[in-house]
């Protein structure tokens, strides 16, 4: 599963990641429904316990830290639904992961025009 060369700054969501992150991703999948998003906001710890998150996953959720969530097995497509709860857009997420300000991150995107 992990015999391929690493791509810097990139985690491929393969079987290994999937095994690690199942509970976390299942919780995030549930956020497709507003009732579940509200239930999470009403009782974050209880909601995480219900999905059986491990300590690493719960800590990453508490910290709202995307790199930690990925390290805990989170999948970008499901994590996006968690980020949505807090109204974070993709530039917020990008800035957080790259250690830039949001404006710096936006400038980096525009710079890709070359």
């Amino acid at each position, binding site marked *: 599963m992990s015999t*391929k*060369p690493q*791509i*810097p*700054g*990139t*985690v*491929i*969501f*393969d*079987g290994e990641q*999937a095994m690690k992150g*199942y509970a976390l*991703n*299942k919780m*995030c*999948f549930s*956020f*497709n*429904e*507003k009732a579940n*998003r509200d239930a999470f906001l009403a009782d974050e710890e209880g909601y995480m316990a219900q999905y059986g998150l491990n300590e690493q996953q719960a800590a990453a959720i508490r910290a709202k830290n*995307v*790199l930690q969530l*990925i390290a805990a097995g989170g*999948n*970008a*497509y*499901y*994590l*996006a*639904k*968690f*980020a*949505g*709860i807090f*109204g974070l*857009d*993709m*530039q917020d*997420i*990008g800035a957080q*992961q*790259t250690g830039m300000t949001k404006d710096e*991150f936006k400038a*980096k*995107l*525009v710079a*890709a*025009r*070359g």
Partner: protein
Amino acid sequence: MAKIIGAVTTSHVPAIGGAIAKGKQQDPYWKPFFDGFNPIRQWLGDHKPDVVVVIYNDHGLNFFLDKMPTFSVGAAPTYVNADEGWGIPSLPPFTGNQPLSWHLIESLVEEEFDLTTCQEMLVDHAFTLPMALLWPDQKWPVTVVPVCINTVQAPVPSAKRCWKLGEAIGRAVASWAGDEKVLILGTGGLSHQLDGERAGFINKDFDLKFMDSLVGDDPQWATQFSGHELVEKTGTQGIELLMWLATRATLGAKVKDVFRNYHIPISNTASGLMLMEPAV
């Protein structure tokens, strides 16, 4: 006999839904993207397709990891979307074309594609927003057949396999007894990466080369790359270009390069748009 009259390939991002809802199409940030669709709408008005086969990837709305299909084909009477977790406005329902869905399924399974059939199916922004870009009044003048390709869980199907899927869809439409005019709409890509320290990665050189390749002598150019190599070259979500390959493959060996647009960025994505017709 049914006939593929053309194919549109476009990027998709949830933020397009927000821009439409807020009427920001002419804001300086969005204008270069939305204006790109004017020639497409013109062409649609002239050519009036009856059915759209939408080749897209689900972003964790209809499919979870408990049942994650490589290739799925919708066979539902109607398709609706949902807010997907961040409350984007939902669009009017889409009317399925069940007889064509089942014909596609029969043909593709016969050709050894191991489909998952979906007689009930939520369609996400990758399906709904490109439709709203093509028909901004959201009064869909077409029926639809969704074809979904997994990009959520590795291993994803190879570019070669997606090309073959597109070819088989082309043959299936050609063998359909109806006389519908069919549009293929492929949505995803181009280069972008949302997750990891490499977030914000964009590869304009590759994107332009890829777009060129689709209308050139070697449209299968990108099928030389493995999934891993495509992620390296285009980003973790750039792999969604698989939809473009499958879409292009429905058209046969030669195509007419009708229209193109390319703009960086919409949200974190390098946005591409192409309209191709089968060469006669």
